[in-house]
């Protein structure tokens, strides 16, 4: 196991992290040490997330990574894992911050994900090898996640969620905090909607983060679509639907709708989860813009 110990006084110690009032005295790093000092965004949220949250985490992470940012999260199930996967999926680089000893892959089921993160980015912890995961270590881990990043995105969070602790740390440091708006009736969005009430910036697309960080956004026009593709895409931009509903409202056959949805999915314009098709974040804006 290749392990780098990074003391406070090291030149490689991430400068943003050093701004914490109690920065970790030592960071243990497996993977690439240098990316810790590059511009990064944290994406955090609930472990038991909805399909909507998972998709938003994945695609926002992908778009931020494609723009050259490092995506930081906590290797937990749910939103955290989706953020890591979304980054790796577009060939981006990601950092996982552990709340246990650097030698542990916690949770165990994410051992393979952790291996890929080490290969493409870094897994870090303030705890030396052998430290067991414990509930009270996770808030401390969260201060490192927000400390490393210029902005923190909370995708889904219940009230009193750990992700809100991450957001609080970010606010204390005067860093940007984004929250993804959710349905007011959904408990999974209670925490994020509350952040919005307190003044967090709403995240409507990855471009919001890029604009706040002053990163040049690549404007991606819609690829040329068939008439059916355009019709279905506009329909989905009004809200998620299942394939049967699309075929009913468009008057097209089940077979044709299935083919059109795949065309849109391959173009990266829509995503399917649990039977519902949704437009990817950013697609609505592209639809509004002149082609």
């Amino acid at each position: 196991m290749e392990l780098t110990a990074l003391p406070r006084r090291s030149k490689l110690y991430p400068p943003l992290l050093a701004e914490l009032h109690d920065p970790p005295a030592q960071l243990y790093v497996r993977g690439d040490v240098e990316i810790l000092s590059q511009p990064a965004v944290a994406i955090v949220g609930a472990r038991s997330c909805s399909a909507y949250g998972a998709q938003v985490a994945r695609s926002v992470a992908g778009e931020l990574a494609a723009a050259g940012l490092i995506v930081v999260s906590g290797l937990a199930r749910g939103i955290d894992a989706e953020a890591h996967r979304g980054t790796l999926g577009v060939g981006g680089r990601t950092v996982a911050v552990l709340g246990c000893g650097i030698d542990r892959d916690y949770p165990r089921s994410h051992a393979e994900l952790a291996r890929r993160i080490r290969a493409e980015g870094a897994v870090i912890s303030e705890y030396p090898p052998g430290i067991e995961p414990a509930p009270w270590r996770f808030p401390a881990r969260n201060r490192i996640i927000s400390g490393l990043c210029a902005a923190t995105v909370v995708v889904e969070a219940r009230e009193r969620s750990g992700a809100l602790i991450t957001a609080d740390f970010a606010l204390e440091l005067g860093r940007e905090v984004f929250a993804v708006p959710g349905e007011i009736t959904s408990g999974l969005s209670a925490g994020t909607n509350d952040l919005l009430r307190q003044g967090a910036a709403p995240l409507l697309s990855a471009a919001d983060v890029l604009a706040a960080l002053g990163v040049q956004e690549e404007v991606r026009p819609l690829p040329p679509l068939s008439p059916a593709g355009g019709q279905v895409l506009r329909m989905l931009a009004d809200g998620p639907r299942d394939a049967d509903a699309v075929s009913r409202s468009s008057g097209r056959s089940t077979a044709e709708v299935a083919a059109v949805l795949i065309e849109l999915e391959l173009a990266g314009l829509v995503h399917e989860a649990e039977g519902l098709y949704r437009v990817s974040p950013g697609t609505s804006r592209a639809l509004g813009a002149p082609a």
Partner: protein
Amino acid sequence: MLARALTHALVGLEARPVEVEAHLQRGVPGFSIVGLPDKACQEAKERVRSGIASAELEWPLKRITVNLAPAGLRKEGSGFDLPIALAVLAASRQVPPERLAEHAALGELALDGRVRPVPGAIVAAEAARRAGATRLFCAHESAPEAALAGIEPVSVRHLAEAAAYLRGAFDPPAVEASTPRANGHQPDLADVRGQERARRVLEIAAAGRHNLLLAGPPGTGKTMLARRLPGILPRLTLPEALEVTRIHSVAGVLPEGRPLIDRPPFRAPHHTASTAAIVGGGPGPRPGEASLAHLGVLLLDELGEFHRPALEALRQPLEDGFVAVSRVQGQCVFPARIRLVGTMNLCPCGARGDPAVECSCSPQRLASYREKLSRALLDRFDLVVVVPRARSRELGARGDASEFVRKRVEAAVQLDSPQLERVAAELLDRAVDTLPLSARGRAKVARVASTIARLAGEQRVTPEHVAEALSYRSPTELSAWS
């Protein structure tokens, strides 16, 4: 004094000829059966003795030895009662032994001498015909089944009738080889409103022998849809129907009065079923649900609730089309070419996929629910669709009746497999790069696309066919375990 009768022992789906020899000697009266009888067969002694007495025939007061040859083959079940009784009667010259030698016999005796049916009559009858017997004694209920095998059944209700027949004093009722089957009610696709996508997928599964997984929240009609698949499958040919009938006969589940199963069978075992119940097994191996569904549909409702070993055991039949059960004594092969239909919720509480309810499953519970379905098993499903919750105002129109769909399926099955166009192959390559799709997944999509082209009556697989096939692949939330 010695007499012989011919009968058969079941080994898997095979019937092996067994000669029943009865020998009467002077000595202390007694009755013993030798030749590896199992418990049920050993107990034939009591039934045969009472049966003969009830038929007002004479129980010979001799030392009676019955040998079941070949002695090395295990004899299981109660079907040996009738041949043993007849051999004893022939040995004591109450019926003519030379007439008995022309017949095979199969059946269980009641204590009052009535003849009861036993499983596997059609298989025994076929073997008897091959062994050169022209007639088969069997229970009245088994006679139509035996007639299917092309042997003349001697249908008897009582041991006294059999004895009278052998003496030439009784004429058994004639049995028709093919009894017209009552038009059993099959659920019709026209009953399903909406669910256009799921209906389309059923049609594709029927035309291409694809396995199908229906996922979605409870109450969306997954089971209702699955039950309508047998009705749109092509009708069985006579050899196919006989093959299915043999399996059902050996398992003892043939419906009474309907000897020939001429419709694709449908089996839906409960999720508590054991591995042996699903793929077959037991000491004298019996066909399991997978074989009972041969050439038809095996529905595993609530796939995630089945025992994991039972699910894993299904992998072999899904790949090879048969189940091989190995025992110390040898191997039995049961055919099992099935269309597997699985239904499952998207999470243990069932709320996922339903926009109106919020899922309350903990991440650990969700992970363990999904881990139960190994990748290897999920890979066997060519078609995966999420069945959404239909809202009442959107229930939609009724679709085609099963009758019409079956006509389309039968037409598609006749066609040769079409060529994959180059543009279509390129689309597949692009999909492998963009979507989470493995090499095996690619091959599955190509197979489904070929079925879709045949359903459309086309010679070539176009990009539209591939695109449609791609939309029925395993969705990410079922394949990427998080």
